[in-house]
């Protein structure tokens, strides 16, 4: 099994190393080229050639002066002498001159030429218009330097050739390295492309597999939902008949029951009612799943609306002698919402408050409002919830006590529906509960739906 992430990282690191190495190599190549350039001006070959050329020019000027050639006066000779001296001066100073002086260690031309320049200085500067003999003597002093300087130039040429060869070798080595690096980079690039291609193919296969599994899961979920829906519907019809039959038995329409028979019928009635409630809950959940949460809003008075909800719950409350107290800051609170959905919300909250309150408990509905929203808090002093359960209270199919022996009926979807309906109204719902003290559920809703 290939670790794709590791392979990609390795490929990227290899390319980065290649780039850095390439950068250093280019830098090295640049240095080599600069070194080669340093041979141009001030290098030993350049310097030797300069002196040789100026020596030849000076000697030529002297010869033509002796030959009385037109334009070759003693001033011309002096000019060429100065230039020859200046070139010798360059070779005798500084780091640049040191290169040539080192090469001249055996031939000793530079030193000798310097000595001759100094020795002949007075003679050259003292040349008059017709000092041909003196000029010939000067020429005699400088002429031997022509071959000696040429020898020095050849030595410098060899040295420069060696330097050029070294640079060429450097460049060849660098170009070989670059070529190898290019091959390596191409290889790595091909490797990377292959890795990415294989990875992409792998990812596509995984995505297909996920998609297939999702479809299977959805189909399974739909089948389960359809099954629950169908079974619930199928159960409800005979259940209605069973409850009706038990009702007839209890009412005595079919004749008086013995005491034991009445107990059995009561038990059957309670279980039947419980089963019926369960079927209704399952159907309600199925309906909720299949329907969207489109609101059918209209304007109504929340106070009157809450009175109706309380009225609807009053029978259940009366059975447990629970008083539902409504505290409302105003008699008229106009709001624009879906009354059907909100009715389910508050019936659920009041139903829970009654269900989880003990005999003779108290349930309070407190309504607060401002210009833009209304807050309805339903408070009971019932059994409350544990601290651990509170965060899961709004989940579907969730009850704190889900055992077979639990005291309260239901499938645990009520608060899930409630939260969904409140959120559909752009509202919020919070729950505050303490075990054996009571529970307060607070719903905040905007007065209008924008």
């Amino acid at each position, binding site marked *: 099994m290939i670790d794709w992430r590791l392979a990609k990282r390795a490929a990227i690191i290899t390319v980065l190393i290649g780039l850095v190495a390439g950068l250093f190599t280019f830098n090295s190549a640049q240095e080599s080229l*600069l070194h080669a*350039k*340093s041979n*141009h*001006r*001030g290098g030993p070959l350049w310097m030797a050639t300069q002196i040789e050329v100026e020596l030849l020019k000076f000697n030529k000027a002297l010869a033509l002066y002796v030959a009385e050639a037109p334009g070759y006066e003693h001033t011309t000779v002096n*000019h060429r002498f*100065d*230039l020859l*001296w*200046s070139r010798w*001066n*360059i070779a005798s*100073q*500084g*780091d*640049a*001159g040191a290169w040539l002086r080192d090469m001249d260690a055996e031939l000793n031309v530079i030193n000798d030429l310097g000595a001759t320049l100094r020795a002949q200085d007075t003679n050259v500067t003292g040349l008059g218009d017709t000092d041909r003999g003196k000029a010939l003597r000067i020429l005699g002093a400088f002429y031997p330097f022509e071959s000696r300087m040429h020898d020095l130039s050849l030595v410098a040429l060899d040295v420069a050739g060696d330097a050029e060869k070294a640079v060429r070798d450097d460049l060849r080595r660098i170009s070989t390295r670059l070529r190898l690096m290019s091959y390596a980079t191409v290889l790595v690039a091909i490797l990377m492309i292959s890795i990415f291609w294989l990875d992409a193919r792998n990812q596509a296969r995984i995505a297909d597999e996920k998609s297939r599994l999702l479809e299977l899961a959805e189909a399974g979920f739909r089948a389960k939902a359809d099954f629950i829906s169908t079974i619930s519907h199928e159960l409800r019809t005979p259940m209605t008949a069973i409850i009706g039959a038990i009702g007839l038995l209890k009412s005595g329409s079919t004749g008086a029951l013995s005491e034991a028979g009445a107990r059995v019928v009561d038990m059957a009635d309670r279980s039947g009612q419980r089963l019926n409630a369960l079927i209704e809950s399952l159907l309600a959940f199925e309906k909720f799943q299949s329907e969207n949460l489109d609101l059918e809003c209209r304007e109504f008075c929340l106070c009157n609306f809450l009175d109706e909800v309380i009225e609807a719950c009053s029978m259940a409350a009366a059975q447990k002698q629970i008083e539902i107290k409504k505290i409302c800051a105003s008699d008229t609170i106009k709001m624009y919402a879906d009354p059907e959905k909100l009715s389910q919300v508050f019936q659920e909250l009041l139903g829970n408050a009654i269900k989880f309150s003990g005999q003779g408990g108290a349930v309070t509905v407190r309504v607060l409002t401002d210009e833009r929203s209304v807050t309805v808090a339903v408070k009971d002093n019932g059994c409350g919830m544990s601290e651990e359960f509170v965060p899961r209270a709004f989940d579907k199919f969730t009850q704190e006590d889900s055992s077979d022996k639990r005291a309260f009926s239901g499938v645990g979807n009520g608060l899930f529906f409630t939260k969904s309906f409140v959120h559909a109204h752009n509202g919020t719902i919070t729950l505050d509960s303490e075990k054996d003290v009571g529970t307060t559920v607070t719903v905040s809703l905007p007065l209008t739906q924008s």
Partner: protein
Amino acid sequence: MLGQAAKAIATSAALIFSAAMVQADTVLTLVDHTNQVQTETMEMTMDELLALPQTEVVTGNEYVDGTPRFSGPLLRDVVALIQPSGATTVKLVALNDYSADAPLIEADQYEVILAIKKDGEFLSRRDKGPIWVIYPMDDYAELNDPNFNNRLVWQLAKLELTK
């Protein structure tokens, strides 16, 4: 004896006269090629170069021992005399026709001088004179490059300005 004295006086007079002549001779020619209609030319004597503000640059380079004290007018001051319009490059031409091109912006960036004195003495033609282009190599690390070495043109004779 008298003859020798007369000869000495005559030689001294000739030297003085010769020096005066040197001062009056053209040592630098400025050529402005930026004007498309007409090429402007200006000739300068040593006196004229000395009349410009003198700048001192203490620096070494590959062609000298140690770090001499060079002095002379700034290249930018000399170029400004001919008032080139939009010139970007100056060609530095030596007596032996060696030349090197330098971007004119360098004359503003660095204290480039046309050195006419080294350690207080006039540069002779025998020692890279009478004018040597000097970059302050020791003051700027980036100047220690063969390209700038090539611009240290000695025996400078001509400045040619182009766009």
